[in-house]
């Protein structure tokens, strides 16, 4: 029950008036920025990173907790009222949510999304309390070879499983690893890939990379394809739900949470699959299947809960192993690093108070979100009407401000532009962003782990395969890589057969 003690201490830290104020600011900023069209949760966190530079780590983490859930909630508001989801995880919410809004039930759609997010977030955070310390306790017993294997597994999983093209995932990953190499080599002290620029010897500031890839890249990409007429926003009053809506919502919330959390906690889970699974489950179980596709409240409640529970789930590997598995977690990990906190399995041992304050703040932020956002929904809906030139000029402005404020040197702005153009290129050619960010974060840690393991193993590569966990992980990795390949080959056989038959058919026809 040590965890409960720590959690209570965390609440004591987080519940001081000053820190509660930070939580409120975090929730409001997170929602406000998250609601803005074109801004997903990861970009929200990246844009708001600079605000936390000069406050204490605990205050910053409290704000992050608010920004994290606020950004998620803001995204769902956008997809319900605009029908153009900002990220793939809220695509499903948009299907039914926007139909409900068009049918005059926007208030109920927003309410079920908000309350569902609260339920899922609370349960998810409770599960985090349950699992993360245990996973971390197990992870601490692992040696360097196992840890190396797990990090490699995360890289492979994120690159090969998520996203539609493995080739493009790998390209993105390699670019990220390349960026991670820049800086002084930690063992021999030699500058690597620094172009002789002394400011680069500490490596490229990861805040600059995150802001460039997420904010600048996106703004430039939108600038190239800006809609001449912005999409229609549906006006909304204060969200509320009738008795029938509650009856139809509570089960989907719980089922969605059950889908979302495990997927979020897995290195390659993501939020797309659980939201989709939740949607088809609700469609099957619903007493009103005819309403699906026309605005069924279950179709908003379930996927939205799944989305939030998955977000809570991603915090398990992030806090217990230091592994980011989605873009938002990756950016948050960035913030850890900028506070000099080494992410990894020892986090719960080394910074217990900070971590438990963060977890307590997640509960508080989640609650504040519900209390603040139900009455504020009409205001958020107004934000959706921000004229697009101002919106994207604002994103550019704040991205610049954020990157510049890190070290107040124009060099960072030049880097921002270079990586912003890289982000633009990636969006144009369909290279996924996530493997790049994961590569930047994990690349240096993988190299360090590899070299340290081999130092201990006196240069014997066989020493990497001595621990059972490491071997199991490599086997899983091989399965993950080979199975889709085999499936594809089998598929291709069928396809070629079909084509051959087709040809035969045609030849016969031609002859006849």
């Amino acid at each position: 029950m040590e965890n409960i003690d720590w959690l209570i201490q965390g609440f004591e830290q987080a519940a001081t008036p000053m820190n509660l104020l930070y939580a409120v600011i975090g929730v409001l900023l997170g929602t406000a920025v998250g609601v803005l069209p074109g801004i997903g949760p990861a970009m929200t966190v990246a844009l708001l990173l600079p605000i936390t530079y000069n406050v204490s780590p605990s205050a910053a983490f409290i704000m992050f907790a608010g920004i994290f859930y606020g950004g998620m909630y803001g995204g769902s508001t956008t997809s319900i009222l605009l029908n153009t989801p900002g990220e793939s995880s809220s695509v499903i919410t948009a299907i039914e949510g926007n139909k409900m809004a068009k049918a005059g039930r926007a208030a109920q759609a927003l309410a079920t999304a908000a309350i569902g997010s609260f339920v899922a977030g609370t349960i998810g955070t409770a599960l985090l309390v349950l699992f993360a310390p245990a996973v971390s306790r197990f992870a601490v017993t692992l040696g360097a070879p196992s840890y190396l294997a797990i990090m490699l597994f995360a890289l492979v999983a994120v690159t090969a499983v998520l996203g539609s093209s493995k080739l493009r995932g790998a390209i993105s990953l390699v670019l990220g690893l390349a960026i991670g190499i820049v800086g002084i080599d930690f063992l021999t002290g030699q500058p690597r890939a620094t172009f002789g620029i002394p400011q680069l010897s500490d490596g490229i500031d990861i805040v600059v990379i995150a802001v460039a890839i997420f904010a600048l890249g996106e703004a430039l990409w939108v600038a190239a394809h800006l809609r001449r007429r912005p999409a229609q926003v549906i006006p909304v009053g204060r969200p509320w739900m009738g008795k029938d809506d509650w009856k139809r919502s509570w089960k989907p919330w719980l089922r969605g949470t059950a889908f979302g959390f495990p997927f979020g906690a897995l290195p390659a889970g993501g939020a797309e699959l659980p939201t989709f699974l939740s949607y088809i489950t609700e469609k099957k179980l619903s007493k009103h299947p005819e309403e699906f596709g026309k605005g069924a409240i279950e179709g908003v409640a379930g996927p939205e809960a799944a989305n939030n529970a998955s977000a809570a789930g991603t915090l398990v590997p992030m806090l217990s192993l230091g592994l980011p598995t989605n873009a938002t977690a990756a950016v948050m990990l960035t913030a850890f690093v900028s506070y000099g906190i080494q992410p990894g399995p020892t986090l719960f041992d080394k910074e217990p108070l900070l971590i438990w304050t963060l977890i307590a703040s997640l509960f508080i932020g989640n609650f504040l979100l519900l209390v603040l956002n139900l009455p504020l929904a009409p205001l958020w809906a107004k934000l959706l009407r921000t004229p697009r030139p101002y919106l994207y000029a604002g994103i550019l402005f704040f991205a610049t401000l954020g990157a510049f404020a890190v070290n107040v040197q124009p060099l960072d702005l030049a880097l921002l532009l270079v990586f912003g153009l890289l982000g633009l290129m990636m969006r144009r050619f369909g290279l996924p962003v996530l493997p790049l960010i994961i590569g930047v974060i994990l690349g240096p840690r993988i190299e360090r782990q590899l070299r340290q393991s081999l130092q201990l193993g006196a240069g014997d590569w066989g020493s990497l395969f001595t621990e059972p966990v490491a071997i199991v992980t490599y086997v899983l990795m091989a399965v993950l890589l080979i199975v889709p390949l085999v499936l594809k080959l089998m598929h291709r056989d069928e396809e070629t057969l079909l084509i051959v038959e087709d040809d035969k058919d045609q030849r016969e026809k031609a002859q006849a």
Partner: protein
Amino acid sequence: MTTTKEPRENEVAKRVDKAQYLVVAVLVVVGAFLIYNALTLETGFAKVDPVGPRFFPLVVGIAAVLLGVVLAIAIPRGSVGEADAGEDIDPESPGDWRTVGMLVGLFVAMILLVNPLGWVVMGTIFFGGAATILGSKHYVRNFVIGLALSLASFYAFYSGLGIPLPAGILDGIL
């Protein structure tokens, strides 16, 4: 038979996205640079560091070049990436690269002039300019909002966060 075959070929030709060779170029340049750079590093600490500082950049560099080659082979076979979608994106539009170019130009001006002119002046020009480039016709309002944002952020960062942004030519006035 020839008539049925022709449209198929046209379809394939349409799907080849030649601009993707830019990604190939980036990969090859990055890879070649990493390999070259790795070879300039001193090794010879084999006892304490059996892997050495070269290994990782070499692996990444070679991987980058190889992926570039694979992509170069895949492009003519019709491999295309799926461009990003989003709330304000009109997927039908061919791409307004002039706007992007002007924004990049504005950004370069920001990099060069932010220290001499200061954050407030440059921030105003940056926001106002960006809004104008993106199609806002209220020219005065664009720059007034820019000024307000720059001033607010300057003072917020100065007194709120203790980060002094450059005052530039307005040094002493602000």
